[in-house]
């Protein structure tokens, strides 16, 4: 049985696809910024073993890294309302992404922080900098530079993972694809096009993050 491919029915839904791309990128952007923030704080706590938060962070990291993102999403979107916390699909999706990325980046940043030579911290402290200043100005920038490739991979993984947010009807790219194929009955073609869009997004995102990373590390090197 020969199947006739027909991509013509997709072009008329380009607006939906474009909106999906924008929403996926917006989710990824919010997730990345706040997820990295969580990761930096968590990485500091874990890297410097600040008790009792260190244990708490360890629990958080293990719980999130050993359960699927989809279940975390369902727990937040369907489970939390039982406690009286009602979130709309966008807030739930963004929150799930932040919590998920935060756990992974905590471990990544921790590795970067722990690789800092002791002498650098001692040098900072001997200049009468507070511990917080030492972390922020001395430890963190090279630590981030050290683990930047791992952070980039994780951000791309989270962007791709956001496709399951369609299951709580957040209207991102996968949701758009499902909507389109329910209209034009060309499921296979629609999903191929969407997959290619994701692939392009992943490639572009990785490229941009690499350039950003190069800029970050250069600046730190140039600093006296």
């Amino acid at each position, binding site marked *: 049985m020969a199947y006739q491919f027909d991509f013509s029915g997709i072009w008329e839904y380009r607006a939906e696809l474009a909106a999906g791309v924008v929403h996926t990128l917006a989710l990824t952007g919010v997730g990345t910024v706040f997820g990295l923030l969580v990761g930096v704080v968590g990485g500091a706590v874990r890297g410097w073993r600040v008790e009792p938060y260190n244990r708490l962070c360890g629990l958080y990291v293990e719980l999130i890294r050993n*359960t699927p993102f989809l279940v975390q999403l*369902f727990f937040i979107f369907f489970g939390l309302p039982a406690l009286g916390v009602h979130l709309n699909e966008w807030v739930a999706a963004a929150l799930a992404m932040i919590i998920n990325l935060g756990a992974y980046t905590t471990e990544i940043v921790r590795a970067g922080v722990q690789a800092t030579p002791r002498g650098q911290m001692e040098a900072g402290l001997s200049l009468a900098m507070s511990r917080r200043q030492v972390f922020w100005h001395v430890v963190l920038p090279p630590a981030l530079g050290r683990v930047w490739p791992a952070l980039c991979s994780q951000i791309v993984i989270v962007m791709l993972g956001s*496709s*399951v947010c369609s299951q709580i009807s957040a209207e991102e790219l996968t949701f758009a694809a499902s909507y389109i*194929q329910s209209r034009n009955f060309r499921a296979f073609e629609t999903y191929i096009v969407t997959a290619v869009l*994701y*692939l392009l997004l992943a490639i572009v995102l990785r490229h941009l993050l690499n350039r950003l990373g190069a800029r970050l590390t250069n600046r730190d090197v140039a600093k006296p």
Partner: protein
Amino acid sequence: MIEFSIWTILQYLAQGLGWTLCLSLLAFVLGGAVGGGILLARIATYPLLRVFARGYIEFFQGTPLLMQLFMVFFGLSLLGRDVSPWVAAGFSLTLYSAAFLAEIWRGCVEAVDRGQWEAAASLAMSRWEQLRHVILPQALRHAVTPTVGFSVQIVKGTAVTSIIGMTELTKTGSILANATLQPFTIFGMVGLGYFLLCYPLSRLAHYLERKLNVLAAH
């Protein structure tokens, strides 16, 4: 609304956990087999094979697992037969795992010193003999830890198959949450179920990493 006792719920969830485990094992074994093939293509001397393997890996690492699942699910049904969720889930998880495992193992092969290839070649070994007797045994040591680590990703990846109707742990949880109207408890237990599967694997990977590093340092 039907009343469920906690035991009935646990029984259903245990069943779902069993299916998750089966699917993970299937994906790991088949994915490993296909991944081995992709690895051979990736490090082959024949350029076309390398290009194919690179494209394969790039595609499956650069698109969401859910998209791959949809494509397999709808693509296979174009061949004119009804696709059971089992076939679609098993098939796409296999392709997905194969891409990641091939890439992990490629790194391990490349971590073996180039001199080892040259030494083997100077002993008049064929390319296959060099790989089989010299390179792979050494690469295997590097490969154990990341491979165990990736098995955690496979277990978590199976959750996505609930979307095309696999009645594994997540799907069982969704059905129970709707039936009992206790999503908080149910999804909490579902998460715990995955944790019970994944945490030992994570610990094992961590343990192996330390142990093999210590061995390598000597």
